[in-house]
């Protein structure tokens, strides 16, 4: 691979700032990519990788910062502008039209034609050429839906190349590819860079990154924290960059370790290909953290526990086996879920704060006066949580993210008789103050005897708040750590690699409920 250091960089993104309501997604991010280079973009979930790539694609406009292509400043006003400048982004959800053929997809919008008629043979030939270029051997007349994932990925790459892209962004291609298919994609990447094109490769898997990448930029909290030459670096080094030493919520929990029999005992949760978890126990008053990369199965596990999937679940609650076939049954049994997405899954954004907070509490008789009763029931809870709103009649969609999350929590506290609280990324998009506030409330609930299962991508938050941390890796719970005695970086290594260091409780060797 040639790296002409004298030429201007292919791409310079400098001082990129992008604000969303309640969050700062990019805070002075910088990315410099050379011609003919495979540049990896690393960072934990929420570090700002996708925002940065959406800015590059033209989907988002940055609030501040400049973008230079081959030394010239460019203004990317929309996805079309991005394409016109030779920037092609291959998203994880491939943006192909599944019912059209490969040839139709490749030449969508610019098919060769004679008058109003498409020249089908010519189109097929052009498509053939494009597919050959990326080393595909599938029929271009097959509908994309019928192709295996790897072939779809190659089609997406071929499509990116028909636009004569200078920069090709690949967003976690390995998430959907097997080992051999990944080899094919790697070969294509190498031939692309050999032609002088630049590839930006996003992945969580460090061994891939070390294999395919020339250099890597690491993002954390929206900022570029390191640029590494991958030839002279190690996975450990990169993990340290990604995690960072100073996290917002440091220190470990100082609560006394809860004792007693488990309130929630997860014997097994299995769903083929998605999740295979066994032997996680949560005592009353205990906060058990679930760590793992995106797609490690945290959300799937929580949904299964909440009766919201077809997974085979074998769980005992308070010593008695329970079968929870629906979220409604789970709620009746005393479970509560704070879902991953507040707006889509947690709240009714058009309804008022008090109506949202009371909606789960109305199932008890008398089934009358829901609004007055709801206001009465939820008022002390909303006060206790410190929800800031102009009035309980304000639509919940108008609140800040932290206050919205508190309303989700208020919904379950208002309902009462809570036994198990499941939290899925509860602090996503919250600022530091709101995060601390939320965890204070969760700890208060645990102190009242609620068993808490807390999934988060923010390891620092888990070590600061959890009594024990289970690491999920590729759908399996691989190890359990005690954050009081374990260094956060050791846990981080297990999160990224899935290997279990000596001293950690493993999933199946010892009874995981026993204190390590």
């Amino acid at each position: 691979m040639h790296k002409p250091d004298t030429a201007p960089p292919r791409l310079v993104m400098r001082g990129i700032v992008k604000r969303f309501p309640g969050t700062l997604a990019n805070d002075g991010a910088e990315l410099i990519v050379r011609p003919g280079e495979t540049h990896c973009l690393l960072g934990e979930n929420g570090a700002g990788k996708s925002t940065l790539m959406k800015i590059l694609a033209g989907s988002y406009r940055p609030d501040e910062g400049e973008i230079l292509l081959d030394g010239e400043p460019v203004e990317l006003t929309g996805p079309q502008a991005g394409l016109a400048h030779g920037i092609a982004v291959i998203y994880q959800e491939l943006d192909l039209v599944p019912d059209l053929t490969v040839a139709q997809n490749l030449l969508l919008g610019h098919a060769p034609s004679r008058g109003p008629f498409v020249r089908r043979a010519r189109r097929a030939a052009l498509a053939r050429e494009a597919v050959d270029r990326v080393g595909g051997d599938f029929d271009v007349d097959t509908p994309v839906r019928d192709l295996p994932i790897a072939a779809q990925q190659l089609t997406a790459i071929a499509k990116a190349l028909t636009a004569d892209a200078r920069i090709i962004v690949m967003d976690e291609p390995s998430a959907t590819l097997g080992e051999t298919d990944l080899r094919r994609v790697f070969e294509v990447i190498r031939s692309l860079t050999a032609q002088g094109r630049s590839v930006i490769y996003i992945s969580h898997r460090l061994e891939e990154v070390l294999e395919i990448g020339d250099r890597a930029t690491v993002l954390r909290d929206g900022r570029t924290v390191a640029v590494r030459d991958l030839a002279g670096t190690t996975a450990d080094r990169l993990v340290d960059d990604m995690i960072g030493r100073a996290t917002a919520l440091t220190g470990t929990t100082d609560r006394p370790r809860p004792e007693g029999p488990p309130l929630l005992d997860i014997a097994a949760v299995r769903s083929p290909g998605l999740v295979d978890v066994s032997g996680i126990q949560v005592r009353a008053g205990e906060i058990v953290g679930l760590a793992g990369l995106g797609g490690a199965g945290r959300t799937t596990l929580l949904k299964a526990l909440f009766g919201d999937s077809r997974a085979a679940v074998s769980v005992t609650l308070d010593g008695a086996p329970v079968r929870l076939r629906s979220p409604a049954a789970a709620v009746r049994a005393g479970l509560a879920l704070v879902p991953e997405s507040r707006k889509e899954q947690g709240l009714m954004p058009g309804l008022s704060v008090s109506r949202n907070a009371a909606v789960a509490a109305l199932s008890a008789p008398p089934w009358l006066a829901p609004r007055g009763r709801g206001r009465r029931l939820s008022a002390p809870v909303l006060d206790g949580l410190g929800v800031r709103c102009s009035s309980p009649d304000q639509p919940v969609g108008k609140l800040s993210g932290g206050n919205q999350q508190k309303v989700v929590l208020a919904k379950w506290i208002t309902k009462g008789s809570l036994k198990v609280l499941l939290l899925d990324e509860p602090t996503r998009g919250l600022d530091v103050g709101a995060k601390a506030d939320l965890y204070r409330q969760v700890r208060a609930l645990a102190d009242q005897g609620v068993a808490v299962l807390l999934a988060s991508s923010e390891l620092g938050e888990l070590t600061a708040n959890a009594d024990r941390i289970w690491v999920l890796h590729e759908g399996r719970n691989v190890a359990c750590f005690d954050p009081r005695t374990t260094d956060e970086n050791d846990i981080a290594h297990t999160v990224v690699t899935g290997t279990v260091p000596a001293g950690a409780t493993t999933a199946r060797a010892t009874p995981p409920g026993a204190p390590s």
Partner: protein
Amino acid sequence: MSTPTTAADQTAATGPRSPGKDSARRRGTELIVRFNLVLVFLALCAVASVLAPEFLTTRNMSNLLQQSALTGIVAVGMTLVILTAGIDLSVGSVAAFGGMTVALLIDKDLNFLLAIAVSVAAGAVFGAVMGGLSAYLSLPAFMTTLAGLTAIRGLTYLLTDGEPAGGDVPHAFQLLGGGFVGYVPIVGLIFVAVAAGAGLLLRTTTFGEYIYAVGSNKEAARLSGLPVRAVVTAVFAISGALAALAGVLLTSRLTIGQPTAFNGLELDAIAAVVLGGTNLFGGRGGVMGTFVAVLLLSVLRNLCNLMGLGSFFQMVVTGLILVVALVLNMLIEKRGSRA
């Protein structure tokens, strides 16, 4: 008669707690949205009484109420369905079926009260089946009720091979659809009672609150442990029952069951619901808006009649008024959300 009802609704909406500034402004725009319709309605009445002196006669008024009552009853059921973000296209066919079965059952010497109960129950069952299919199999309600529209209309024709039914109905039964208390038509009273009942259901029961929750965000409602599918099935059952009731009342007025009746009723009902400020995507709106909108639309039709404008012209005017009202509502709401 709509104005006092709406005013009562507003005091209920403001509630005992004094709202903050932001909320007060929102309430203000909400009131304008609602008043906007009432104002348009009153303005239209004023125009009508100037243009056509016979508009304000008690005879015309009671006529007007009688004409709007049947569509109104159906529109109330439709409001509940649309509040859950559903839609019921089958109401016209269910109403015709209800009207035919009640005529046939009375013809077979069944007690007319029992006959009404059977017809209304049949409507509820139709609604529950269509709504249940949509809720439990995640089929779009648009399609299940479109299928219902065709199938139930066909079933209605099959009952008598397309012929009208009945003719010899008891006097008491005729009173229901054609009778008056003083100058007020009984169907009008039934319409008011149904609207008030639905309004109370929405405001004062847990079920009503669930309707709003399901319509506002089905996924969040499900993950809050609400019986989403049962709620959806129930509102379709209510819509079916009310449609059948409208059919029964028409048969009572005409003394025969007409299998061809109520063609296109679903569109009139949906138009009234949307004109009344209920959001087609669910979660926002209420019965009182629908009530005013139904009266507004029939005043419009009445005015065209009194002025001797043909029915073709009426259709054009009704369509234009709908568009104007929707644009106005949208503009006011946009300004409200920006404030």
